[in-house]
């Protein structure tokens, strides 16, 4: 499959490229320069013409781009970036779109602070935090396109990532026995979930717009990841037990 990756130099990009690189033909893009063995183009996801041009000849698009702090650029990237992806899909007849974002673009504070067993099929309540609402608006754009046009949108929600072996977290070293945000996953398992979304036949998707919680099996029961397991066939291999268990003396 020929796959366009937007935001390939972002947090999740290297893991996804490692996972998919030997199985698919990748065109990797990012707003920054990137040293890669794959076809590379410098693309600003907020630039419609650049996204449409980069998507020519592709079979699928994966959007890993993200921008958090700057208000203007956050809307440009997180919201309009998905619109640009949808237009690129329409322009080139690309039917498979993989969108990514944080879990709180769906389950904002009004869910997360109050409830358990939070499902990816709940109506979104992102709240007003900039990152959450800009990503949620981007997801809503793709939902509207999926309802109106012949494209399949899968949104994979993530939050915290860990090194599988060292249990290192991006913000610091290992977090042994400290508990974790119960929406955590190893980098490699996260990338494997993307692969599942890329390779699942359309006929196995219940609708043209599906959302998945991607975190490893955890005992908290705060969120629910069963849909990713049953529909996508995703099986996490790293359970991060060292973080959410503590020694008893």
């Amino acid at each position, binding site marked *: 499959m020929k796959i366009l990756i937007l935001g390939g130099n972002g947090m999740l990009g290297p893991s996804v490229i490692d996972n998919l690189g030997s199985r698919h033909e990748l065109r990797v893009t990012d707003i920054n320069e990137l040293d890669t063995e794959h076809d590379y183009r410098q693309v600003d996801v907020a630039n*419609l013409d650049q996204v449409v041009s980069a998507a020519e000849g592709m079979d699928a698009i994966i959007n890993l781009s993200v921008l958090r702090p700057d*208000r*203007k650029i956050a*809307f*440009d990237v997180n*919201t*309009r970036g998905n*619109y640009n992806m*949808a*237009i690129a899909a329409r322009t080139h007849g690309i039917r498979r779109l993989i969108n990514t974002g944080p879990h709180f673009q769906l389950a*904002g*504070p*009004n869910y997360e602070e109050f409830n358990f067993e939070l499902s990816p099929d709940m109506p979104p*309540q*992102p*709240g*007003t935090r*900039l990152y959450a*609402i*800009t990503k*949620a*608006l981007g997801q*809503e*754009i793709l939902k*509207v*396109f999926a*309802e*109106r*046009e012949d494209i399949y949108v899968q949104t994979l929600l993530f939050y915290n990532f860990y090194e599988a072996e060292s249990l290192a977290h991006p913000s610091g070293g290992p977090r042994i026995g400290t508990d974790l945000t119960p929406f955590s996953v190893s980098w490699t398992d996260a990338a494997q979930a993307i692969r599942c979304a890329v390779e699942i036949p359309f006929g196995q998707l219940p609708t043209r717009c599906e959302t998945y919680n991607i975190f490893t099996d955890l005992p908290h029961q705060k969120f629910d990841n069963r849909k990713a397991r049953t529909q996508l066939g995703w099986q996490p291999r790293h359970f991060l037990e060292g973080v959410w268990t503590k020694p008893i003396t």
Partner: protein
Amino acid sequence: MKVLVTSANSRLGKIAAAGLTSAHDVTLTDLPQFVEANDGVVANDLNHDDATDGLVSGMDAIVFPGIEAHAGDASWLLDHHTRRSYNVLRACVDAGVPHAIYLSTLLVLDDYEERLTVTERWRPLPSTDDEMLAVHLGEYVFREYAREEPISTTILRLGFPIVDGDRDSANAGGTAALATDDAGLAINATVEAEGSGYRVLHIQSPVPNARYLLGDAEAAIGFPVAAGEGAAR
């Protein structure tokens, strides 16, 4: 009441201003490219800055036209209805403005058959048309602010087409039409009713075989009956 109307030089901005000016202290603002010298409209980009904070300060309500505001390409429309509405609402929250009104359209429900009793409890079905998508997202931003912040927001979904003139003029516009006079009445009544958390109201003129039920608008703001009588007095 002190009311701020954005996109004031757009068609709907002017309709809103006409409905409000006689009863309220109205400030008009628009993006600099739409403001002409001495037209009484404050030029403001609605960016995340002190100018926007100052613009909303002291207001009792703001009115943000969505449909029939300024035209632009998809990128411009999406930016305007998401980022700029977000900026205005954030400024309102910071300044303690209690009520923000977004002027949307009943076109987001146009896909439902005419025989159906479509009310505020029916899910919008926006198209991928640039303006429809942008307006749908504008509603989304206003909804989330009401959900999470200390501000009430009201979505007024206005009938279509919006026909110039009084209530009788709407009869020629079809079963979902809205006369400009009625639009002004509804906007004014919404401002005066003040906010109530999050509220969506459907607004069209009471034409024969009116397509959309107006029970919620009648209960919340007295439209079309009381508002129309008030105008008659």
